[in-house]
Protein backbone atom coordinates (compact mmCIF):
# COMPACT_ATOMS: atom_id res chain seq x y z
CA UNK A 1 0.00 0.00 0.00
CA UNK A 2 2.76 2.51 0.66
CA UNK A 3 4.22 1.49 -2.69
CA UNK A 4 1.07 2.56 -4.47
CA UNK A 5 1.05 5.73 -2.47
CA UNK A 6 4.57 6.55 -3.55
CA UNK A 7 3.75 5.75 -7.16
CA UNK A 8 0.77 8.07 -7.03
CA UNK A 9 2.80 10.80 -5.42
CA UNK A 10 5.43 10.48 -8.13
CA UNK A 11 2.78 10.89 -10.82
CA UNK A 12 1.66 14.22 -9.45
CA UNK A 13 5.21 15.29 -8.80
CA UNK A 14 6.27 14.58 -12.37
CA UNK A 15 3.19 16.28 -13.73
CA UNK A 16 4.31 19.45 -12.01
CA UNK A 17 6.97 19.84 -14.66
CA UNK A 18 4.77 19.23 -17.65
CA UNK A 19 3.75 22.15 -19.78
CA UNK A 20 0.43 23.50 -18.51
CA UNK A 21 -2.56 23.41 -20.79
CA UNK A 22 -3.83 26.83 -19.82
CA UNK A 23 -4.59 29.30 -22.59
CA UNK A 24 -4.01 32.81 -21.31
CA UNK A 25 -7.17 34.45 -22.60
CA UNK A 26 -7.50 37.35 -23.46
CA UNK A 27 -3.86 37.80 -24.36
CA UNK A 28 -3.94 34.57 -26.32
CA UNK A 29 -7.07 33.49 -28.15
CA UNK A 30 -7.64 30.07 -29.54
CA UNK A 31 -8.48 29.69 -33.19
CA UNK A 32 -12.11 28.83 -33.78
CA UNK A 33 -13.32 26.54 -36.50
CA UNK A 34 -14.01 27.97 -39.94
CA UNK A 35 -17.80 27.58 -39.64
CA UNK A 36 -17.98 28.65 -36.01
CA UNK A 37 -21.37 29.99 -34.98
CA UNK A 38 -20.72 33.55 -33.90
CA UNK A 39 -22.43 36.86 -34.33
CA UNK A 40 -24.75 37.16 -37.32
CA UNK A 41 -24.04 39.33 -40.33
CA UNK A 42 -26.32 40.70 -43.04
CA UNK A 43 -24.43 40.47 -46.28
CA UNK A 44 -24.57 42.63 -49.37
CA UNK A 45 -24.02 42.25 -53.08
CA UNK A 46 -20.97 43.73 -54.73
CA UNK A 47 -22.86 46.79 -55.89
CA UNK A 48 -23.75 47.68 -52.31
CA UNK A 49 -27.35 46.56 -52.26
CA UNK A 50 -28.39 44.41 -49.32
CA UNK A 51 -29.09 40.76 -49.91
CA UNK A 52 -31.86 40.67 -47.33
CA UNK A 53 -35.25 40.77 -48.99
CA UNK A 54 -37.33 40.88 -45.80
CA UNK A 55 -38.87 37.47 -46.32
CA UNK A 56 -38.84 36.71 -42.53
CA UNK A 57 -37.91 33.07 -43.11
CA UNK A 58 -35.12 33.46 -40.54
CA UNK A 59 -37.53 34.76 -37.92
CA UNK A 60 -39.84 31.85 -38.69
CA UNK A 61 -37.04 29.33 -38.36
CA UNK A 62 -35.61 30.66 -35.11
CA UNK A 63 -36.43 28.29 -32.24
CA UNK A 64 -35.73 30.90 -29.62
CA UNK A 65 -37.78 33.70 -31.22
CA UNK A 66 -34.73 35.91 -31.27
CA UNK A 67 -35.21 37.59 -34.68
CA UNK A 68 -37.67 40.36 -35.45
CA UNK A 69 -38.12 41.40 -39.09
CA UNK A 70 -40.41 44.01 -40.51
CA UNK A 71 -40.36 44.37 -44.25
CA UNK A 72 -41.04 47.34 -46.50
CA UNK A 73 -41.29 47.91 -50.21
CA UNK A 74 -38.43 49.04 -52.39
CA UNK A 75 -39.43 52.06 -54.43
CA UNK A 76 -37.61 53.04 -57.61
CA UNK A 77 -36.32 56.09 -55.77
CA UNK A 78 -35.24 54.32 -52.64
CA UNK A 79 -34.00 50.81 -53.30
CA UNK A 80 -32.30 48.94 -50.48
CA UNK A 81 -32.22 45.46 -51.87
CA UNK A 82 -32.62 43.74 -55.20
CA UNK A 83 -36.18 42.64 -55.70
CA UNK A 84 -39.32 44.16 -54.33
CA UNK A 85 -38.94 44.20 -50.57
CA UNK A 86 -36.27 44.75 -48.00
CA UNK A 87 -36.02 44.47 -44.24
CA UNK A 88 -36.88 47.86 -42.82
CA UNK A 89 -36.47 46.68 -39.23
CA UNK A 90 -34.17 43.76 -38.54
CA UNK A 91 -33.26 42.88 -34.94
CA UNK A 92 -31.54 39.90 -33.42
CA UNK A 93 -31.93 39.62 -29.69
CA UNK A 94 -28.77 38.00 -28.36
CA UNK A 95 -30.39 37.55 -24.96
CA UNK A 96 -32.40 34.83 -26.67
CA UNK A 97 -30.23 33.63 -29.54
CA UNK A 98 -28.90 30.13 -29.01
CA UNK A 99 -26.49 30.28 -31.98
CA UNK A 100 -28.00 27.19 -33.56
CA UNK A 101 -27.71 28.48 -37.14
CA UNK A 102 -31.21 27.50 -38.28
CA UNK A 103 -31.76 31.05 -39.47
CA UNK A 104 -28.69 30.74 -41.70
CA UNK A 105 -30.06 27.56 -43.17
CA UNK A 106 -33.41 29.23 -43.81
CA UNK A 107 -32.15 32.33 -45.61
CA UNK A 108 -32.80 32.01 -49.37
CA UNK A 109 -30.37 34.68 -50.49
CA UNK A 110 -27.47 33.96 -48.11
CA UNK A 111 -28.08 37.36 -46.62
CA UNK A 112 -27.73 35.99 -43.11
CA UNK A 113 -24.46 34.31 -42.24
CA UNK A 114 -22.55 33.89 -39.05
CA UNK A 115 -19.17 35.43 -38.36
CA UNK A 116 -16.63 33.95 -35.97
CA UNK A 117 -17.00 36.72 -33.43
CA UNK A 118 -17.97 35.45 -29.97
CA UNK A 119 -17.01 38.31 -27.68
CA UNK A 120 -20.49 39.71 -27.30
CA UNK A 121 -20.65 40.63 -23.62
CA UNK A 122 -22.61 43.70 -22.66
CA UNK A 123 -23.61 45.46 -19.48
CA UNK A 124 -27.34 45.79 -20.07
CA UNK A 125 -29.96 43.64 -21.74
CA UNK A 126 -30.79 46.43 -24.15
CA UNK A 127 -27.21 46.45 -25.41
CA UNK A 128 -27.61 42.84 -26.46
CA UNK A 129 -30.45 43.55 -28.89
CA UNK A 130 -28.56 44.11 -32.14
CA UNK A 131 -30.28 46.28 -34.71
CA UNK A 132 -29.80 46.32 -38.45
CA UNK A 133 -26.89 48.78 -38.48
CA UNK A 134 -25.08 46.58 -35.95
CA UNK A 135 -25.52 43.53 -38.14
CA UNK A 136 -24.99 44.80 -41.67
CA UNK A 137 -21.79 43.91 -43.39
CA UNK A 138 -19.72 46.91 -44.48
CA UNK A 139 -20.19 48.42 -47.92
CA UNK A 140 -17.49 47.32 -50.39
CA UNK A 141 -14.86 49.95 -51.10
CA UNK A 142 -15.81 52.69 -53.54
CA UNK A 143 -19.42 51.56 -53.81
CA UNK A 144 -22.41 53.76 -53.16
CA UNK A 145 -24.32 52.57 -50.12
CA UNK A 146 -28.07 52.05 -50.34
CA UNK A 147 -30.60 53.55 -50.81
CA UNK A 148 -29.99 53.44 -54.51
CA UNK A 149 -32.08 55.30 -57.04
CA UNK A 150 -32.86 53.22 -60.08
CA UNK A 151 -32.77 56.16 -62.42
CA UNK A 152 -29.28 57.13 -61.22
CA UNK A 153 -27.64 53.85 -60.29
CA UNK A 154 -29.39 51.70 -62.77
CA UNK A 155 -31.59 48.71 -62.16
CA UNK A 156 -30.06 46.03 -59.99
CA UNK A 157 -28.18 43.61 -62.17
CA UNK A 158 -26.74 41.20 -59.65
CA UNK A 159 -28.77 38.58 -57.92
CA UNK A 160 -31.54 36.18 -58.71
CA UNK A 161 -33.90 38.92 -59.74
CA UNK A 162 -31.23 40.74 -61.66
CA UNK A 163 -31.93 39.94 -65.29
CA UNK A 164 -35.66 40.19 -64.72
CA UNK A 165 -35.46 43.36 -62.70
CA UNK A 166 -36.30 45.37 -65.71
CA UNK A 167 -39.59 43.52 -65.94
CA UNK A 168 -41.03 44.86 -62.73
CA UNK A 169 -40.14 48.42 -63.43
CA UNK A 170 -42.49 48.71 -66.35
CA UNK A 171 -45.60 47.31 -64.71
CA UNK A 172 -46.99 46.82 -61.28
CA UNK A 173 -47.51 43.09 -61.78
CA UNK A 174 -45.54 40.78 -59.59
CA UNK A 175 -42.39 39.42 -61.17
CA UNK A 176 -43.53 35.81 -61.29
CA UNK A 177 -46.54 36.68 -63.38
CA UNK A 178 -44.40 38.68 -65.73
CA UNK A 179 -41.91 35.82 -65.92
CA UNK A 180 -44.64 33.37 -66.90
CA UNK A 181 -45.92 35.77 -69.50
CA UNK A 182 -42.42 36.18 -70.85
CA UNK A 183 -41.79 32.44 -70.99
CA UNK A 184 -45.02 31.74 -72.73
CA UNK A 185 -44.10 34.37 -75.29
CA UNK A 186 -40.64 32.98 -75.82
CA UNK A 187 -41.56 29.34 -75.68
CA UNK A 188 -39.48 26.82 -73.83
CA UNK A 189 -36.14 28.32 -73.40
CA UNK A 190 -33.06 26.79 -71.96
CA UNK A 191 -32.70 27.69 -68.38
CA UNK A 192 -29.56 29.61 -67.68
CA UNK A 193 -26.84 27.18 -66.76
CA UNK A 194 -24.69 29.61 -64.84
CA UNK A 195 -25.75 29.53 -61.25
CA UNK A 196 -25.58 32.87 -59.48
CA UNK A 197 -23.39 31.99 -56.52
CA UNK A 198 -23.35 34.40 -53.62
CA UNK A 199 -19.91 35.50 -52.70
Amino acid sequence: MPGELLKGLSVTFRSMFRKPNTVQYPEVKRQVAARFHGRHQLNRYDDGLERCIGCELCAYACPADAIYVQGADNTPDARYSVGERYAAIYQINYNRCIFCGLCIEACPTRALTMTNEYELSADTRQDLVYDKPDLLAPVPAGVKPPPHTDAVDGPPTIGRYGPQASLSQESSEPVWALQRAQESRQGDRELPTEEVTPK
Partner: protein
Amino acid sequence: MIWDLFIIVVKVVGVFAFLMLSVLFIIWLERRVVAFMQTRIGPNRVGPFGILQSLADGIKLFFKEDVRPTSADRILYPLAPVLMMVPAFLSVSVLPFGDHFGSERAQLTDLNVGILFVLAMSSLQVYGIVLAGWSSGSNYPLLGGVRSSAQMISYEIAQGLSIVGVLMYAGTLSAAGIVAAQHGDPIVGFIPRWYVVPQLPMFLVFLLAGIAETNRAPFDLPEAESELVGGYHTEYSGVKFALFFLAEYLNVITVSAVATTLFLGGPDGPVVHGFLPWLWPILWFVAKIYLFIFLFVWLRATLPRLRFDRLMAIGWKYLIPVALVWVLVTGVVLTVNVGAISRRTLYVGIGVVAALLLLSTLLPTSKPESESEPEPTAPGGSPS
Protein backbone atom coordinates in the same frame (compact mmCIF):
# COMPACT_ATOMS: atom_id res chain seq x y z
CA MET B 1 12.96 45.67 32.73
CA ILE B 2 11.71 47.93 29.96
CA TRP B 3 14.28 46.38 27.67
CA ASP B 4 13.03 42.89 28.50
CA LEU B 5 9.49 43.97 27.78
CA PHE B 6 10.60 45.49 24.53
CA ILE B 7 12.36 42.28 23.55
CA ILE B 8 9.24 40.27 24.34
CA VAL B 9 7.07 42.58 22.29
CA VAL B 10 9.49 42.37 19.38
CA LYS B 11 9.43 38.59 19.53
CA VAL B 12 5.65 38.46 19.74
CA VAL B 13 5.27 40.78 16.79
CA GLY B 14 7.90 38.83 14.90
CA VAL B 15 6.23 35.47 15.42
CA PHE B 16 2.81 36.91 14.63
CA ALA B 17 4.08 38.58 11.47
CA PHE B 18 5.88 35.46 10.36
CA LEU B 19 2.78 33.36 10.85
CA MET B 20 0.40 35.74 9.11
CA LEU B 21 2.71 36.28 6.15
CA SER B 22 3.33 32.58 5.96
CA VAL B 23 -0.38 31.87 5.89
CA LEU B 24 -0.90 34.30 3.03
CA PHE B 25 2.07 32.82 1.23
CA ILE B 26 0.93 29.27 1.80
CA ILE B 27 -2.54 29.90 0.43
CA TRP B 28 -0.96 31.17 -2.78
CA LEU B 29 1.63 28.39 -2.79
CA GLU B 30 -1.00 25.71 -2.38
CA ARG B 31 -3.09 27.03 -5.23
CA ARG B 32 -0.08 27.29 -7.53
CA VAL B 33 1.43 23.92 -6.64
CA VAL B 34 -1.88 22.06 -6.88
CA ALA B 35 -2.48 23.78 -10.21
CA PHE B 36 0.89 22.76 -11.62
CA MET B 37 0.31 19.23 -10.45
CA GLN B 38 -2.89 19.34 -12.48
CA THR B 39 -1.02 20.74 -15.53
CA ARG B 40 -2.60 24.12 -15.27
CA ILE B 41 -1.32 27.36 -13.81
CA GLY B 42 -2.83 28.75 -10.69
CA PRO B 43 -3.73 32.36 -10.01
CA ASN B 44 -1.49 34.61 -12.05
CA ARG B 45 -3.44 37.82 -12.50
CA VAL B 46 -3.35 39.63 -9.17
CA GLY B 47 0.19 40.89 -8.85
CA PRO B 48 3.33 39.23 -10.23
CA PHE B 49 2.69 35.49 -10.49
CA GLY B 50 -0.59 36.05 -8.68
CA ILE B 51 1.14 36.44 -5.34
CA LEU B 52 -1.32 39.05 -4.11
CA GLN B 53 -4.21 36.65 -4.67
CA SER B 54 -4.53 35.67 -1.00
CA LEU B 55 -4.48 39.34 -0.07
CA ALA B 56 -7.27 40.01 -2.55
CA ASP B 57 -9.23 37.06 -1.14
CA GLY B 58 -8.74 38.34 2.38
CA ILE B 59 -9.90 41.84 1.44
CA LYS B 60 -12.95 40.38 -0.27
CA LEU B 61 -13.81 38.33 2.79
CA PHE B 62 -13.48 41.38 5.00
CA PHE B 63 -15.96 43.27 2.88
CA LYS B 64 -18.48 40.47 2.78
CA GLU B 65 -21.74 40.69 4.66
CA ASP B 66 -21.49 39.19 8.12
CA VAL B 67 -24.42 36.80 8.22
CA ARG B 68 -25.60 35.35 11.50
CA PRO B 69 -28.30 32.68 11.47
CA THR B 70 -31.16 33.48 13.81
CA SER B 71 -30.81 30.13 15.54
CA ALA B 72 -27.12 30.66 16.17
CA ASP B 73 -25.93 30.92 19.71
CA ARG B 74 -25.21 34.55 20.54
CA ILE B 75 -21.93 34.12 22.35
CA LEU B 76 -20.44 30.93 20.99
CA TYR B 77 -21.03 31.64 17.33
CA PRO B 78 -18.58 34.56 17.19
CA LEU B 79 -16.29 32.96 19.73
CA ALA B 80 -15.64 29.69 17.90
CA PRO B 81 -13.27 31.04 15.21
CA VAL B 82 -11.28 32.80 17.91
CA LEU B 83 -11.07 29.53 19.84
CA MET B 84 -9.62 27.94 16.77
CA MET B 85 -7.13 30.64 15.87
CA VAL B 86 -5.58 31.53 19.20
CA PRO B 87 -4.26 28.08 20.11
CA ALA B 88 -2.62 27.80 16.69
CA PHE B 89 -0.67 30.99 17.33
CA LEU B 90 0.22 29.94 20.83
CA SER B 91 1.57 26.56 19.77
CA VAL B 92 4.25 28.12 17.65
CA SER B 93 5.30 30.48 20.38
CA VAL B 94 7.18 27.79 22.28
CA LEU B 95 9.18 26.49 19.32
CA PRO B 96 12.74 27.62 18.68
CA PHE B 97 13.10 29.44 15.41
CA GLY B 98 16.85 29.63 15.46
CA ASP B 99 19.79 29.42 17.78
CA HIS B 100 20.66 32.83 19.12
CA PHE B 101 19.93 36.36 18.13
CA GLY B 102 22.72 38.23 19.87
CA SER B 103 22.26 37.23 23.46
CA GLU B 104 18.62 36.25 23.10
CA ARG B 105 17.30 32.87 22.11
CA ALA B 106 15.36 32.99 18.84
CA GLN B 107 12.32 31.63 20.61
CA LEU B 108 9.38 33.49 22.05
CA THR B 109 9.41 31.53 25.26
CA ASP B 110 10.93 28.28 26.36
CA LEU B 111 8.37 26.61 28.57
CA ASN B 112 9.84 23.65 30.35
CA VAL B 113 6.68 21.75 29.37
CA GLY B 114 6.68 23.15 25.85
CA ILE B 115 5.62 20.03 23.97
CA LEU B 116 2.84 19.32 26.41
CA PHE B 117 1.67 22.87 25.86
CA VAL B 118 1.60 22.25 22.12
CA LEU B 119 -0.51 19.14 22.58
CA ALA B 120 -2.84 21.01 24.89
CA MET B 121 -3.31 23.78 22.35
CA SER B 122 -4.24 21.34 19.64
CA SER B 123 -6.79 19.85 22.00
CA LEU B 124 -8.28 23.29 22.55
CA GLN B 125 -8.89 23.63 18.85
CA VAL B 126 -11.35 20.78 19.04
CA TYR B 127 -13.47 23.11 21.15
CA GLY B 128 -13.39 25.67 18.42
CA ILE B 129 -14.62 23.24 15.82
CA VAL B 130 -17.31 21.49 17.77
CA LEU B 131 -18.65 24.77 19.12
CA ALA B 132 -18.63 26.25 15.63
CA GLY B 133 -20.61 23.31 14.38
CA TRP B 134 -23.11 23.26 17.20
CA SER B 135 -23.58 26.99 17.69
CA SER B 136 -24.42 27.52 14.01
CA GLY B 137 -27.82 26.03 14.75
CA SER B 138 -28.00 24.15 11.47
CA ASN B 139 -27.71 20.55 10.31
CA TYR B 140 -24.65 20.41 8.12
CA PRO B 141 -22.42 22.34 10.48
CA LEU B 142 -23.46 20.15 13.36
CA LEU B 143 -22.66 17.00 11.42
CA GLY B 144 -19.41 18.46 10.19
CA GLY B 145 -18.42 19.72 13.60
CA VAL B 146 -19.18 16.44 15.32
CA ARG B 147 -17.35 14.44 12.68
CA SER B 148 -14.40 16.74 12.73
CA SER B 149 -14.11 16.70 16.49
CA ALA B 150 -14.39 12.90 16.55
CA GLN B 151 -11.62 12.73 14.00
CA MET B 152 -9.44 15.15 15.89
CA ILE B 153 -9.70 13.53 19.29
CA SER B 154 -9.01 10.09 17.88
CA TYR B 155 -5.88 11.27 16.14
CA GLU B 156 -4.69 13.20 19.16
CA ILE B 157 -4.00 9.94 20.92
CA ALA B 158 -1.84 8.76 18.07
CA GLN B 159 -0.13 12.15 17.96
CA GLY B 160 0.62 12.11 21.66
CA LEU B 161 1.94 8.58 21.57
CA SER B 162 4.15 9.32 18.60
CA ILE B 163 5.82 12.06 20.57
CA VAL B 164 6.57 9.78 23.52
CA GLY B 165 9.47 8.12 21.73
CA VAL B 166 11.14 11.45 21.12
CA LEU B 167 10.57 12.46 24.71
CA MET B 168 12.15 9.26 25.93
CA TYR B 169 15.23 9.99 23.89
CA ALA B 170 15.46 13.66 24.80
CA GLY B 171 14.42 13.35 28.40
CA THR B 172 12.78 16.75 28.45
CA LEU B 173 9.50 18.33 27.40
CA SER B 174 11.04 21.67 26.56
CA ALA B 175 11.29 22.36 22.85
CA ALA B 176 14.70 23.96 23.13
CA GLY B 177 15.91 20.93 25.06
CA ILE B 178 14.68 18.55 22.39
CA VAL B 179 16.38 20.57 19.69
CA ALA B 180 19.59 20.64 21.71
CA ALA B 181 19.44 16.89 22.19
CA GLN B 182 19.46 16.47 18.43
CA HIS B 183 22.75 18.29 18.02
CA GLY B 184 25.89 16.30 17.80
CA ASP B 185 28.27 14.79 15.36
CA PRO B 186 26.62 13.06 12.46
CA ILE B 187 26.51 9.30 12.47
CA VAL B 188 28.64 7.62 9.80
CA GLY B 189 29.79 11.06 8.77
CA PHE B 190 26.65 12.46 7.20
CA ILE B 191 23.46 11.15 8.85
CA PRO B 192 22.48 13.84 11.34
CA ARG B 193 21.38 12.90 14.79
CA TRP B 194 17.82 14.03 14.18
CA TYR B 195 15.13 11.93 15.73
CA VAL B 196 13.66 11.06 12.37
CA VAL B 197 16.37 8.42 12.07
CA PRO B 198 15.77 6.37 15.21
CA GLN B 199 12.08 7.20 15.35
CA LEU B 200 11.05 6.87 11.72
CA PRO B 201 7.78 5.01 12.38
CA MET B 202 6.83 7.60 14.95
CA PHE B 203 7.66 10.30 12.45
CA LEU B 204 5.26 8.78 9.95
CA VAL B 205 2.59 8.34 12.62
CA PHE B 206 3.03 11.94 13.69
CA LEU B 207 2.72 13.15 10.13
CA LEU B 208 -0.44 11.17 9.48
CA ALA B 209 -1.93 12.27 12.76
CA GLY B 210 -0.94 15.83 11.98
CA ILE B 211 -2.69 15.76 8.63
CA ALA B 212 -5.80 14.37 10.29
CA GLU B 213 -5.63 16.94 13.08
CA THR B 214 -5.66 19.81 10.64
CA ASN B 215 -8.52 18.37 8.58
CA ARG B 216 -6.37 18.35 5.46
CA ALA B 217 -6.83 16.05 2.52
CA PRO B 218 -7.14 13.10 2.46
CA PHE B 219 -8.72 13.46 5.90
CA ASP B 220 -10.89 16.42 5.01
CA LEU B 221 -14.32 14.81 4.94
CA PRO B 222 -15.67 17.06 7.71
CA GLU B 223 -15.20 20.11 5.55
CA ALA B 224 -15.43 18.84 2.01
CA GLU B 225 -17.85 20.78 -0.13
CA SER B 226 -19.27 17.79 -1.88
CA GLU B 227 -20.00 16.04 1.37
CA LEU B 228 -21.20 18.53 3.90
CA VAL B 229 -21.40 21.82 2.00
CA GLY B 230 -18.77 23.30 4.23
CA GLY B 231 -18.86 21.29 7.38
CA TYR B 232 -18.45 23.26 10.54
CA HIS B 233 -17.89 26.57 8.75
CA THR B 234 -20.95 26.42 6.48
CA GLU B 235 -22.86 29.17 8.23
CA TYR B 236 -19.91 31.50 8.58
CA SER B 237 -19.15 34.29 6.14
CA GLY B 238 -16.96 37.33 5.96
CA VAL B 239 -14.42 37.93 8.68
CA LYS B 240 -15.35 34.89 10.75
CA PHE B 241 -14.92 32.62 7.77
CA ALA B 242 -11.62 34.31 7.04
CA LEU B 243 -10.55 33.44 10.59
CA PHE B 244 -11.44 29.77 10.06
CA PHE B 245 -9.62 29.77 6.78
CA LEU B 246 -6.58 31.34 8.41
CA ALA B 247 -6.79 28.97 11.35
CA GLU B 248 -6.70 25.94 9.11
CA TYR B 249 -3.55 27.07 7.35
CA LEU B 250 -2.04 28.17 10.64
CA ASN B 251 -2.58 24.67 11.89
CA VAL B 252 -0.68 23.35 8.92
CA ILE B 253 2.24 25.59 9.80
CA THR B 254 2.01 24.59 13.45
CA VAL B 255 2.06 20.87 12.71
CA SER B 256 4.96 21.37 10.32
CA ALA B 257 6.86 23.43 12.87
CA VAL B 258 6.32 20.89 15.63
CA ALA B 259 7.38 18.08 13.30
CA THR B 260 10.59 19.87 12.41
CA THR B 261 11.33 20.63 16.04
CA LEU B 262 10.75 17.09 17.19
CA PHE B 263 12.05 15.03 14.31
CA LEU B 264 14.15 17.17 12.02
CA GLY B 265 16.27 18.97 14.56
CA GLY B 266 14.52 22.32 14.29
CA PRO B 267 17.00 24.98 13.24
CA ASP B 268 19.81 22.47 12.95
CA GLY B 269 21.74 22.60 9.72
CA PRO B 270 25.04 23.59 8.09
CA VAL B 271 25.97 27.16 8.92
CA VAL B 272 28.08 29.60 6.98
CA HIS B 273 30.60 30.52 9.66
CA GLY B 274 31.12 34.13 10.48
CA PHE B 275 28.60 35.58 8.07
CA LEU B 276 25.33 36.46 9.85
CA PRO B 277 25.45 33.50 12.23
CA TRP B 278 21.95 34.19 13.49
CA LEU B 279 20.38 33.96 10.06
CA TRP B 280 21.17 30.43 8.98
CA PRO B 281 19.37 28.50 11.73
CA ILE B 282 16.24 30.56 11.11
CA LEU B 283 16.50 29.85 7.40
CA TRP B 284 16.93 26.15 8.05
CA PHE B 285 13.89 26.12 10.33
CA VAL B 286 11.76 27.94 7.79
CA ALA B 287 13.03 25.73 4.97
CA LYS B 288 12.12 22.57 6.85
CA ILE B 289 8.68 23.94 7.65
CA TYR B 290 8.09 24.68 3.99
CA LEU B 291 9.28 21.22 3.07
CA PHE B 292 6.50 19.79 5.21
CA ILE B 293 4.01 22.25 3.81
CA PHE B 294 4.93 21.18 0.31
CA LEU B 295 4.40 17.60 1.39
CA PHE B 296 0.95 18.47 2.74
CA VAL B 297 0.04 20.21 -0.49
CA TRP B 298 1.42 17.32 -2.51
CA LEU B 299 -0.73 14.86 -0.59
CA ARG B 300 -3.77 17.04 -1.08
CA ALA B 301 -3.21 17.15 -4.83
CA THR B 302 -2.74 13.42 -5.11
CA LEU B 303 -5.00 11.52 -2.77
CA PRO B 304 -8.76 11.02 -2.82
CA ARG B 305 -10.72 11.62 0.30
CA LEU B 306 -10.96 8.92 2.94
CA ARG B 307 -14.36 7.72 3.95
CA PHE B 308 -15.10 8.61 7.51
CA ASP B 309 -15.26 5.12 8.93
CA ARG B 310 -11.99 4.18 7.27
CA LEU B 311 -10.49 7.38 8.58
CA MET B 312 -11.44 6.48 12.13
CA ALA B 313 -10.22 2.94 11.58
CA ILE B 314 -6.79 4.18 10.58
CA GLY B 315 -6.56 6.35 13.66
CA TRP B 316 -7.64 3.76 16.16
CA LYS B 317 -6.70 0.42 14.67
CA TYR B 318 -3.43 1.15 12.89
CA LEU B 319 -1.70 4.26 14.17
CA ILE B 320 -2.17 3.67 17.90
CA PRO B 321 -0.86 0.07 17.88
CA VAL B 322 2.14 1.09 15.77
CA ALA B 323 2.90 3.95 18.13
CA LEU B 324 2.51 1.74 21.19
CA VAL B 325 4.77 -0.95 19.79
CA TRP B 326 7.42 1.56 18.91
CA VAL B 327 7.24 3.08 22.38
CA LEU B 328 7.94 -0.38 23.75
CA VAL B 329 10.85 -0.83 21.35
CA THR B 330 12.27 2.55 22.30
CA GLY B 331 11.95 1.69 25.96
CA VAL B 332 13.76 -1.58 25.43
CA VAL B 333 16.51 0.10 23.45
CA LEU B 334 17.03 2.80 26.03
CA THR B 335 17.01 0.66 29.14
CA VAL B 336 18.35 -2.67 28.11
CA ASN B 337 21.55 -3.55 29.91
CA VAL B 338 23.39 -5.68 27.44
CA GLY B 339 26.79 -7.02 28.07
CA ALA B 340 27.84 -8.90 25.00
CA ILE B 341 26.17 -6.83 22.31
CA SER B 342 27.17 -3.24 22.11
CA ARG B 343 24.43 -0.69 22.03
CA ARG B 344 25.34 0.33 18.55
CA THR B 345 24.80 -3.21 17.31
CA LEU B 346 21.43 -3.22 19.04
CA TYR B 347 20.42 0.03 17.34
CA VAL B 348 21.56 -1.21 14.00
CA GLY B 349 19.75 -4.48 14.48
CA ILE B 350 16.48 -2.85 15.39
CA GLY B 351 16.86 -0.36 12.59
CA VAL B 352 17.42 -3.11 10.07
CA VAL B 353 14.39 -5.05 11.29
CA ALA B 354 12.21 -1.96 11.18
CA ALA B 355 13.48 -1.00 7.76
CA LEU B 356 12.81 -4.49 6.45
CA LEU B 357 9.28 -4.37 7.85
CA LEU B 358 8.66 -1.03 6.21
CA LEU B 359 10.13 -2.15 2.93
CA SER B 360 8.06 -5.32 2.95
CA THR B 361 4.97 -3.20 2.72
CA LEU B 362 6.35 -1.90 -0.56
CA LEU B 363 6.42 -5.34 -2.13
CA PRO B 364 3.77 -5.86 -4.79
CA THR B 365 0.93 -7.91 -3.37
CA SER B 366 0.32 -11.03 -5.44
CA LYS B 367 -3.33 -11.63 -6.08
CA PRO B 368 -4.49 -15.25 -6.00
CA GLU B 369 -4.88 -16.69 -9.51
CA SER B 370 -8.49 -16.87 -10.52
CA GLU B 371 -9.38 -20.49 -11.04
CA SER B 372 -11.27 -20.09 -14.24
CA GLU B 373 -12.11 -17.22 -16.42
CA PRO B 374 -15.41 -15.68 -15.49
CA GLU B 375 -18.15 -17.18 -17.55
CA PRO B 376 -19.32 -14.89 -20.30
CA THR B 377 -22.76 -13.81 -19.32
CA ALA B 378 -25.50 -12.44 -21.46
CA PRO B 379 -27.04 -9.18 -20.37
CA GLY B 380 -29.37 -10.12 -17.58
CA GLY B 381 -26.83 -12.29 -15.79
CA SER B 382 -27.43 -15.75 -17.05
CA PRO B 383 -24.36 -17.45 -18.49
CA SER B 384 -25.04 -18.12 -22.11
